[in-house]
């Protein structure tokens, strides 16, 4: 836990404001507002946990619901062609356990300051078999940067900053990536003095279909870094399940390596 708190402090010192949110979300904020089409393979029953009861939220705030529906169907006012399908306004209210920290960023867009920098460390849930590298629920560290100076180069600048300041990297590599809600997208890989090369996280500039639907006109950078993996390495562990251990003696004796 103190590892997570130190990451929070570091981000705070870089000018980021913390955000948080509920564990139960709607398809709207978790995926639709992020311009993931409702027919996308990742949105099948086998990726996200849905609630047995209640099944639907009472309502979705306007004008966001209409804006996002329009963006999906025709592009709306976002300058896009859209996905050209019929947006299901009932499905969008379906209650789920949040599957990605980006849902918090989506919420924040609605009330963000410009310029603004926000972050959160959020527990997320994915439909995955639990093993050494996968958990039923896990941490994601996510954030956004809003402002006129946001562009590909400053995006790379932020990633470099996170790599060095938070992960202690001695070398950084950027690779084009893919996320449904950012374009362009970048994956960042880092070299750690002890741990070697690994993928630190992903990022990109939010698609205007996401930002314009929330009423934002400036470019917005979205980024996420893999905290659980880093925590494992900091504690000298190999198995993610050990991070959430029940064993009092084991936890008692654990000490951080860095």
């Amino acid at each position, binding site marked *: *836990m103190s590892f997570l708190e130190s990451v*929070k402090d570091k981000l705070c010192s870089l000018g*980021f*404001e*913390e*955000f*948080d949110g*509920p*564990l*139960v*979300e709607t398809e709207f904020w978790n995926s639709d507002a992020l311009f993931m089409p409702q027919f996308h*393979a990742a949105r099948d029953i086998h990726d996200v*946990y*849905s*609630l*047995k009861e*209640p099944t639907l*939220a*009472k309502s979705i705030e306007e004008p966001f619901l209409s804006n996002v529906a329009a963006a999906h169907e025709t*592009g709306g006012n976002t*300058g*896009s*062609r*859209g*996905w*050209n399908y019929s947006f299901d306004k009932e499905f969008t209210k379906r*209650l789920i*356990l949040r599957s990605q920290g980006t849902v918090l960023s989506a919420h924040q867009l609605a009330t963000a*300051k410009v*310029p603004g*920098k926000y972050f959160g460390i959020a*527990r997320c*849930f994915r439909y995955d078999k*639990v093993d050494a590298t996968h958990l*039923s*629920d896990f941490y994601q560290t996510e954030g956004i*940067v809003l*402002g006129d*100076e946001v562009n*590909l180069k*400053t995006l790379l*600048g*932020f990633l*470099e900053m996170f790599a060095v300041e938070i992960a202690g990297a001695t070398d950084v590599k*950027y*690779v*084009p990536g*893919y996320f449904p809600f950012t*374009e*362009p997208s*970048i994956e960042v890989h880092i070299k750690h003095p002890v741990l070697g090369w690994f993928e630190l996280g992903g990022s990109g500039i939010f698609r*205007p279909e996401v930002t314009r639907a929330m009423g934002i006109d400036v470019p917005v950078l979205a980024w996420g870094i893999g905290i659980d993996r880093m925590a494992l390495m900091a504690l000298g562990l190999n198995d993610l399940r050990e*991070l*959430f251990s*029940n*064993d*009092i*003696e084991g*936890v*008692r004796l654990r000490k951080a390596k860095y």
Partner: protein
Amino acid sequence: MPKIDVNEKLFFSLLGKTYTYDELETNLTCGKAELDEKPDTSLPEAERTIKIELNDTNRPDLWSTAGIARQLRQHANLPSPNGKDANYSSFFSTKEKTRDCGNRIVTVDPQLKDIRPFMTAFVISGKPIDEPMLLDIIQTQEKLCWNYGRKRRSISMGIYRSASITWPIRYAAVNPDTTSFVPLASTESMTCRQILAEHPKGKEYGWILADKSKYPLLIDAKDEVLSMAPIINSATLGAVQVGDTDLLVEMTGTDMPTLTLATSIVACDFADAGYSILPVKIEHPYDTGFGTTITTPFYFQKPSQASLSEVNRILGSQLTSDEVTNALERMGSSVTVSGGTIEIRPPEYRNDFLHEVDVIEDVMIGMTLDYFTPSKPHDFTIGRLLPQTLYNRKVKNLMVGMGYQEMIFNYLGSGKDYIEKMNLSGTSLGKAVIEISNPMTENFQFVRPSILPSLLSAESVSGNAVYPHRIFETGKGVSRCETENTGTRTHDYLGFLTAANNANFNDLASEVSTLLYYLEHEYTVVESDDPRFILGRQASVLREGVSVGIFGEIHPAVLENWDIDIPCVAAEFDLQLLL
């Protein structure tokens, strides 16, 4: 994200150059691809398989050997394979110009409109198919239809020996009980419905046709069956082997743009490999969105635009329109510039330009990422932690000060742990626990409503640790709440537990009052009757009449459920309410 097996020899011959595996790894990034596994170098080149993982779900054109080779080839400015010009337009039809289909015509039955309405097709010709190419086309079929075609529902593909087919072909809706044929991998004739029930592919994909009164069937002019889409080919016309020349490739489905793009992708792949592509005309009795009669492969994509100033704004660069044009051409598009506007004609095998930003990302990849250097951000913003975070830290420090050890627990668990073992079956607290409708296993079926079961689960497996045990967690829990929009409320809880031979209410009460003293709150304590605690040895803490927490000696029934034989006292507080 799809993973493909690529035959090394075929790949490098389509690429037009051989790379070392390290070079390949670097160059694959232009297709957002990664080397998943290097081949076994002890095998000869013709038998080596490179495993590649593709990360872009909007680029189905990359999910084949020819496709990923094509991207790398264009990006590296290498000439097209087979010495030919990479001009696919010679066999593509457009709205303005229809290519000659010869006698290759398909008529579609009107009854298919509500069953599986659309079809596309083309014939490949010119040379016999070899094993690497045949394996690749089977893999492409699987990847496109499964990933892009939503498990064959919106696209399914079939390949047949064209020489054995008598044109024209009918795509018809047939009675599933009176129509039979011999399916692939079988020797007996079966009715269509039998195939769904008994044939392995029928069982796997039968759900697509489950509620239909008639099934789609592809038949030639001599009433020979080609296949029952999307299930299975026939064993006669539908059994393709290495060495066959002239193959018919057809696709059927429910979404015409997706279907047409998939058709174009496969056609371009075969063209790259040196085959001639012969168009096929399909006569639909209803509008497909591209007309009723369509000759495929068909180019339907619309041009996209980007403004040079926006490209440079988003990329933080000062590229000229020539540099942007070159970059986009390396990604396969053709470009014309007029004033400050770049107009992009997408290549035949792509349809992923939804917005200007899609063009801009292509420019980035075309320039390669190395071109862009990181620049330090300047905007000044003040960093802040949430008041709840600061408050929780204060609470944590107080707990550690009192000798408690911090734990972290999962938020998902079983009904047994969260409800039954806690003595909450049938109670209102028990009913307020959030259940998942599609859990992976019953061990992760509920979202925890409280930290207490997590603490007890740790205690129940920690008999080997020296006593006393004093553990706590600050974390979240969720319960039903009718006034919230989601019908649930997420709480920030503090939960702590002492397990010791002399654990008792009075000591706990003094810890609670210490905690509340330092948190500076006015509060009152009243006796409570929570089933998790012993009656008479538990209390609620109220602040302005609202309950903010509960503490007491854990009920022996609960301890027994958890197999704990040492007394425990525990407390739980809602930190949001305390803040």
